[in-house]
């Protein structure tokens, strides 16, 4: 139902039930927000978006107040501006003045608000209590001093991820975002997905930096630094440096990595192919024995940790195969470089990932020679490129320098929710029929949807498969399964909504346009690639002959299965 309201003396029509903010955004009137995120329920906590509504005694928050017929709204009246400015001044009173040294310098929303409202002096002076930075977790670091208590992190954690590892504790000015029993982030239910970092407007939540370690390794003449990257990285880098999509981004990236000082660079997709080959064989075995179905994919470490903590009864259903990152690290150290005569302990493997959970995954899989020595996020790579003064405009694409960069497009699809499953269906079909799945492109599993279900007939057997992203959505599915839903064969879960293209290590402030571009890059690569099934990757044939045993065999279990990783602190 349409109704008429007046905004800044202009008549505007609005729908009943809409919030004032929705209407303002539509007509292009910008009011500042802080605690508001379109994907979360509005709480009206920060009061930045307050507007004046004639007839109401107090200012009202645009984000959570619904429009009413003939409301007369003033969005930038002197009263409103004074209030907004005062609120930011209050926040700044407790905020450390260390913008120059802050991880979010330049991308901080508080900085932006302060500039927007033209705050030029510290109006209130208060003594700050010293607070300890929480560095317990290998993935995420919390600096409570910089927290403005907008609650975005805790709402993401609760509403999108469904874990609620952090929440407000204490009252009044002693309120803070805390962990259970006030212990470090590593000692609670946190799955380390890093979505809280993306949600944080300030530098209160950041990834644990591995960059110093990487820089040191790059300068160590005794080491042989190599890099492996997730298939989502090229598109993210292109976006960050404004590269045109017609450029050979993958090879430009390779060149940049070489300039940084990495001796070799690998696309992790090769390991994804191995993962698919193994999983296809394991699934067929499970299907035959009707055991541990539905099979859950295990490429997302946040999801694996979620199962460990919340649903240990489901862990036999997880695919036992290690994630592509860990497989690739193993492959590099134990086969690729050692074949070239380099000792594994000299090899320093760096992963570039759109993910923070991968940092913990690498950290905890460190028995003997650890497969991956350091994991950096896309954000960290961008900084490294900046630090080393690499100008993409002047770079020439670096041709593929090693055979081990061959991968099928299935492997690359791992970057988006549904992609792993799509590749897996192709492999299962190929393994059971010796033929390509037709059509190879499974439209039901594509696109930006939280849950995608498909029915696929393979070798005359109809299989129900589901790809779900955003842990909270997975939790709903888990409940269905616990309540007796038993017609599913494979479930792919990605902790972040839409998968790795929206990972916790990606650019802060990504919007839907960015997501769509990253998705398109992966789907386009699938279109262009000749080898669409993991099993057809010629490098795999070599690897299975020379290094691995046949898929799903005891020999491979030792190298490719999870099991010996250190248990994560609880």
């Amino acid at each position, binding site marked *: 139902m349409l109704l008429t309201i007046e905004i800044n003396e202009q008549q505007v029509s609005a729908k009943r039930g809409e919030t004032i903010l929705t209407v303002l955004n539509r007509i292009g009137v910008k009011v500042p927000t802080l605690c508001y995120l379109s994907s979360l329920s509005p*709480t009206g906590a920060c009061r930045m978006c307050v507007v004046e509504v004639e007839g109401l005694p*107090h200012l009202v928050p645009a984000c959570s107040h619904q429009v009413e017929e003939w409301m007369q709204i003033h969005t930038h009246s002197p009263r409103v501006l004074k*209030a907004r400015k005062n*609120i930011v001044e*209050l926040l700044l009173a407790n905020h450390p003045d260390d913008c120059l040294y802050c991880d979010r310098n330049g991308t901080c929303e508080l900085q932006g608000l302060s500039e927007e409202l033209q705050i030029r002096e510290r109006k209130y002076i208060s003594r700050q209590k010293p607070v300890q930075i929480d560095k317990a977790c290998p993935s995420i670091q919390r600096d409570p001093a910089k927290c403005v*208590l907008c609650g975005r992190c805790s709402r993401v954690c609760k509403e999108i991820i469904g874990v609620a590892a952090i929440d407000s504790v204490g*009252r009044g000015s002693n*309120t803070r975002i805390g962990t259970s029993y006030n212990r470090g982030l590593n000692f609670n239910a946190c799955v380390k997905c890093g979505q809280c970092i993306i949600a944080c407007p300030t530098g209160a939540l950041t990834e644990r930096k591995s960059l110093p370690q990487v820089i040191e390794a790059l300068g160590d003449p005794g080491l042989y630094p190599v890099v492996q990257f997730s298939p989502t990285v090229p598109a993210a880098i292109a976006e960050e440096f404004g590269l045109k999509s017609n450029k050979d981004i993958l090879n430009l990236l390779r060149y940049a990595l070489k300039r940084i000082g990495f001796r070799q660079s690998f696309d992790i997709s090769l390991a994804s192919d191995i993962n698919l080959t193994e999983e296809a064989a394991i699934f067929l075995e499970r299907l035959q024995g009707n055991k541990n179905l539905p099979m859950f994919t295990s490429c997302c470490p946040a999801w694996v940790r979620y199962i460990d903590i919340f649903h240990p009864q489901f862990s036999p259903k997880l695919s036992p195969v290690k994630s592509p990152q860990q497989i690739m690290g193993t492959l590099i150290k134990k086969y690729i470089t050692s074949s070239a005569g380099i000792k594994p302990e000299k090899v320093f493997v760096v992963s570039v990932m759109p993910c923070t959970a991968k940092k913990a995954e690498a950290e905890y899989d460190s028995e003997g020679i650890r497969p991956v020595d350091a994991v950096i996020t896309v954000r960290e790579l961008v900084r490294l490129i900046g630090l080393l003064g690499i100008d993409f405009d002047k770079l020439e694409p670096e041709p593929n320098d090693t055979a081990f960069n061959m991968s099928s497009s299935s492997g690359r699809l791992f970057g988006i929710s549904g992609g792993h499953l799509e590749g897996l269906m192709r492999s299962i079909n190929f393994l059971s029929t010796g033929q390509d799945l037709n059509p190879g492109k499974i439209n039901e599993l594509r696109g930006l949807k939280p849950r995608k279900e498909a029915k696929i007939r393979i070798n005359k057997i109809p299989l129900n498969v589901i790809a779900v992203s955003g842990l909270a959505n997975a939790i709903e599915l888990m409940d269905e399964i616990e309540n007796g839903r038993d017609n599913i064969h494979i479930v792919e879960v990605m902790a972040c909504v839409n998968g790795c293209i929206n990972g916790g290590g990606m650019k802060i402030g990504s919007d839907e346009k960015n997501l769509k571009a990253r998705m398109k890059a992966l789907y386009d690569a699938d279109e262009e690639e000749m080898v669409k099934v993991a099993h057809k990757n010629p490098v795999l044939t070599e690897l299975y002959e020379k290094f691995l045993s046949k898929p799903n065999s005891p020999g491979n279990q030792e190298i490719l299965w999870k099991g010996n990783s250190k248990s994560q602190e609880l």
Partner: protein
Amino acid sequence: MPTQDLTDIRTFLTEKVIKNYSGIFDKPTTDRLAVIRHEKVSRPVIYIGTGTCGVISGALSTLERVQKYVSENNLKADIIEVGCNGFCSAEPLLDVQLPGKTRLCFRNVTEDRAEDVLNSVFHHTLQNDLTLGQYKQPGLEEWPNVPMLEQIPWFNLQTRHILKNAGIISPVSIEEYIAGGGYKSLYKTVLNYPADKICEIIEQSELKGRAGGGFPTGRKWKIALDTAGDQKYMICNADESDPGAFMDRAIIESDPHRIIEGLSIAAYAIGASQAIIFVRSDYENSLNILETAIRQAKEYGLLGEDIFGSGFNLSISVRQGAGAFVCGEETALISSLEGQRGLPRSKPPYPAEKGIWGHPTVINNVETLANIPGILENGPAWFKAMGTKSSKGTKLFSLAGKAVNTGFIEVPMGITFSSIINNIAGGVKDGKALKAVQLGGPSGVCIPPADLDTPLDFEALSGIGAKLGSGGLIILDEKTCMVNLAKYFIDFLQNESCGKCIPCREGTKKMLDILEGITRRPKEETTHETLERFKGVVQLESLANVICDTSLCGLGQNAPNPVLSSLKWFREEFEEHIFDRRCAAGVCHDLRTFYIDVEHCNGCNICQKKCPENAIVGSPKMPHFIIESKCTGCGICFDVCKFSAIYFK
């Protein structure tokens, strides 16, 4: 009582009393009711007020002493524990009723005075200074030379409807409540009226919420009734947390069935089958009493399935609040009940449309609900006849602070504050002058004596910038420092802020910082500390206005009230603190400068020994001196001096 008797009395009270629609009883019924109500006693009855205020004053020891007295003297007497009649400063209250004679009330009967009092009654001498008065009981012999209780100053201006039974009946006796006319309104309601009619009656009575907001109760119910929903909830808010307010506790402890009846009627009116009483967990006594009362009501069939065969079902549960002040705010209360952190939510949607777990929910406070049975019993016109144009009925207040008499009272709307203070409260203690009256809890305002002739009325109060609030009334004497008081309330509020919205969380803290700056001893008057102090003062008022304007819930919106009202009426006191660095009342310790009067100092040396700062010098037997630059103003010397030689400015 034997089981047979119990069933018998239950049947009698249900069938013959509650269900007697006319209210006219035959002689045997009237007689039996008088016995149940203890109006007609065959042997002496001793009543002791064992509400929380009584217990604090030593009522349990008095009770023990009385029990001992009765057994030692082989008396055949009943001892009944009752709640408080409101006169808390007179606790422990002890009433005695002898057969054929009117009931007597004695004040401050501590353990050591119990025997005196009882002797004086049983020997009919009444020679003691503790007699408060006698009850008006037509048909019984009056005690000579004893004033009627209703005529003594504490009671004579009160109109007691909600407090009708307070301190008179046993709170855990449903029989006494029914015998006094209780649960009749519920019976009338569920059998005779459709739900919307009840909403209409309450709306006609013009009853407004008593928790502070003053929203018309009937209208609130109607909104919830008209909102579609298969499950609705009725909640009684007994999370009373204002410092100096204890009306809710008093009603629960003295007449719990009145609340249960009011709550049941309200639940019926909005179409709810679930009701919750949210009580703060520190009210242990109230919790026990409510549990007992609910159990009794269930046994009488007044709660549960198909009440009075009307098809109306209701179950009431009691839930404990963890003691956060903000949980008295209705949306925070809902969050707390849902098991969430007790944080307020943005309104609209109002709870009446979307409340607990998304269901339509009405939240009324204890006093509001306690009004309901009376309105249904006597009709809306009766209720409307009391009070003023904009405010009807009576209002409970808890009187605290520097008054001669303190406790809780029920007065008709429209009465002036000055008559409450001068007559009921008996004026200011120790003959001091009245400085102000603090009204409405921590986020209330301080009214100066000049405005005390304002009638008790929602409109008149907002005319002078005050709010009725929940009913806390604190009397402040001349020795009160208004800056310190404002600081106390701001400190309370900033501690109790839930921390959700920025203006309340950060703003109240900054206000506290500024007030602390004003009352703190300056370390160095020449540094920028002085500048900051002045800067803070300039900001105080504008910051207060922004907090009012932008905070999420009522707590924040009203949080600056104590500062704003003090600034309005007692500005010169703030200025004195800021510019002269002086606290006239001598309350702000840091601002005191101590001197030694050489005339009185005999050089006893004690102050010098006790001074933690070594700020006092002097030889024994010679007058001492204070080194001003070393003195921190702690006042220890002042306290230890036996010769009143130390004074401060």
